[in-house]
C-alpha cells in the first residue's frame, strides 16, 4: 500500500478506497465520494469503470466547456472516455451488473449493519429520491465497499447492529472505509482492519454502534 499523500481525512479515506481497485477489474463508483477515487488511481492503471447509465471505459470528469452534451456519468457529471470505451443501453448495463461482470462497487451509505445490510436510499418522510440503480449494484457486484464518513452530520454512528432505515439490500457489504477506519463485515460481525492516522481505537469504538472485533496482528494505519 502506498503512503497517504495528505493528512486531510477526506482525501485519506478516498486514497485508501482507491487501493481496493485491483488491476483488471470492472468497477462502478457511486455518486459523491466514491467518484473521487478516480483521481487516486495511478496513471495507466488497467481498470474499466462502469457508469450504469450506459458506459464502460469512463474517464475523467470534464468542465462544461470541454463536455459533450450527450456524455454523462450516472451522477450527471460530464465525463471523458478512455480508448476502448463502449456505449450501451440500460438493459445491457444492468445485465452486466446482475450477470456478475461487476467486480467491485464502491457506494455511499446512510447506515450499514453488522450483518452487511445497507441503507442508502430512503429516509422516510424526509428524503425520498428513489433507489436508482443502487439496489442492483449493492446486491450483485462481486464485492461491495462502502465509502462514507463514520458518523452522519449530527454525529450519529452509521455502523450499527441493525439498520433503522429502509434497506437497499440485505447482507451485501463486504468492507466499510471511513474517515476513521477500515472495517470488514464478517460472519461474526464488524471486524476492525485499519485505523486512520490520528484516530484511536477508543475513538472508533465510541463512534460505532455495534461490537468491533480487533485483529490479532497490530492494527494497520492509513
Amino acid at each position, binding site marked *: 500500500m502506498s503512503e497517504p499523500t495528505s493528512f486531510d481525512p477526506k482525501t485519506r479515506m478516498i486514497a485508501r478506497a482507491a487501493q481496493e481497485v485491483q488491476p483488471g477489474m470492472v468497477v462502478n463508483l457511486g455518486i459523491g465520494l466514491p467518484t473521487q477515487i478516480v483521481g487516486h488511481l495511478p496513471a495507466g492503471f488497467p481498470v474499466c469503470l462502469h457508469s450504469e447509465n450506459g458506459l464502460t471505459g469512463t474517464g475523467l470528469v470534464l468542465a462544461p466547456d470541454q463536455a459533450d*452534451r*450527450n456524455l*454523462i456519468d450516472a451522477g450527471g457529471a460530464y465525463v471523458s472516455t478512455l480508448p476502448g470505451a463502449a456505449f450501451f443501453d*440500460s438493459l445491457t448495463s*444492468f445485465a452486466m451488473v446482475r450477470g456478475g461482470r461487476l467486480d467491485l462497487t464502491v457506494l455511499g451509505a446512510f447506515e450499514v449493519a453488522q450483518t452487511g445490510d445497507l441503507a442508502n436510499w430512503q429516509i422516510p418522510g424526509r428524503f425520498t*429520491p428513489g433507489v436508482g440503480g443502487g*439496489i442492483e449494484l449493492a446486491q450483485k457486484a462481486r464485492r461491495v465497499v462502502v465509502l462514507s464518513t463514520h458518523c452522519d452530520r449530527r454525529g450519529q454512528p452509521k455502523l450499527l447492529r441493525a439498520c433503522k432505515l429502509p434497506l437497499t439490500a440485505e447482507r451485501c457489504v463486504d468492507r466499510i472505509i471511513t474517515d476513521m477506519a477500515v472495517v470488514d463485515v464478517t460472519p461474526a460481525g464488524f471486524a476492525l482492519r485499519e485505523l486512520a492516522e490520528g484516530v484511536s481505537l477508543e475513538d472508533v469504538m465510541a463512534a460505532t454502534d455495534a461490537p468491533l472485533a480487533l485483529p490479532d496482528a497490530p492494527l494497520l494505519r492509513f
Partner: protein
Amino acid sequence: MSLPDKRQGMEEAIARIPNGARILISGFGVPGTPFTLIQELLRQGQTGLTLVKNDANETGLGIDHLLASGQVERLITTHIGLNPRAIELMNSGKLTVEFCGQGMLAERLHAGGAGLKAFLTDIGVGTLLAQGKPHHELDGQSLVLETALRADFALIHAAKADPFGNLRYTATARNFAPVMAMAADQVIVEAEAVVGLGDLAADDIHTPGPFVDAVVDLAALGPLSAEYGVVRREQHV
C-alpha cells in the same frame, strides 16, 4: 419492394395521444430526453397521464413542465432526487410515484416489449421495494415476481433516423430508448437528423425500423432548444 415511409408532423403525431394515456419517455437526465415532443404534449394539454421515465428531470426541464401543468397523475420512475417539485407533489399526495430499481425498470420494459408476462428475480428480496409484490419459490429460493411493463405510447429521442424509423442514438443518450421503443403500441420518435434510406449502415442501427410508428424531424423545426444542454456539438454518430 421498398421500406415504408413513417415521417410525420409533430402536431399530428402527438395529437394521437388521448387523455389518460400511459407514456414511456426516454432519457437519463438530459441526454436522450425528447424535450421537443414533451413541449408539444405540454402545448396540446392531454391530462391524466401516466409517465414512465428513469428520472423526473430537473426543475424547469423536460417532464417537469408536465408535472407543473398538472397533466401527470402517476409517475413510474427510479429516481426523482433532482426535482424538488416532484418530491413535493409526491409528498402532498398530488402525484402517485411508483419507484422501481433502474435495471428492474429496464427488464420490465424488455419483458413488455418482448411479449413476456413477468419474470422472477432475487433483486429487492427483503427490502421495501419487494413488499406487496407476489413472491414465488424456485429451487428453494424466495423470488419476487416483477410484471412486464408496456404503454400506449413511447416518446423517444434519437440522434439519427431514416424514414422507415431505423434509429441511432449518441453516447449515453441511448439509455432507456431501445427498450422503450420496443414496449409501446405507438412509438413516436424525434430525430436530430433524418437521413435517407440506406444512409444508416445495417450493422449500426440501434433500434430497427419495425418498432417505430412515426418519425418527427427536429431539424425541420429549427435549432435545438436550450433544454438539450448544447455544450458542444461533438458528433458521435
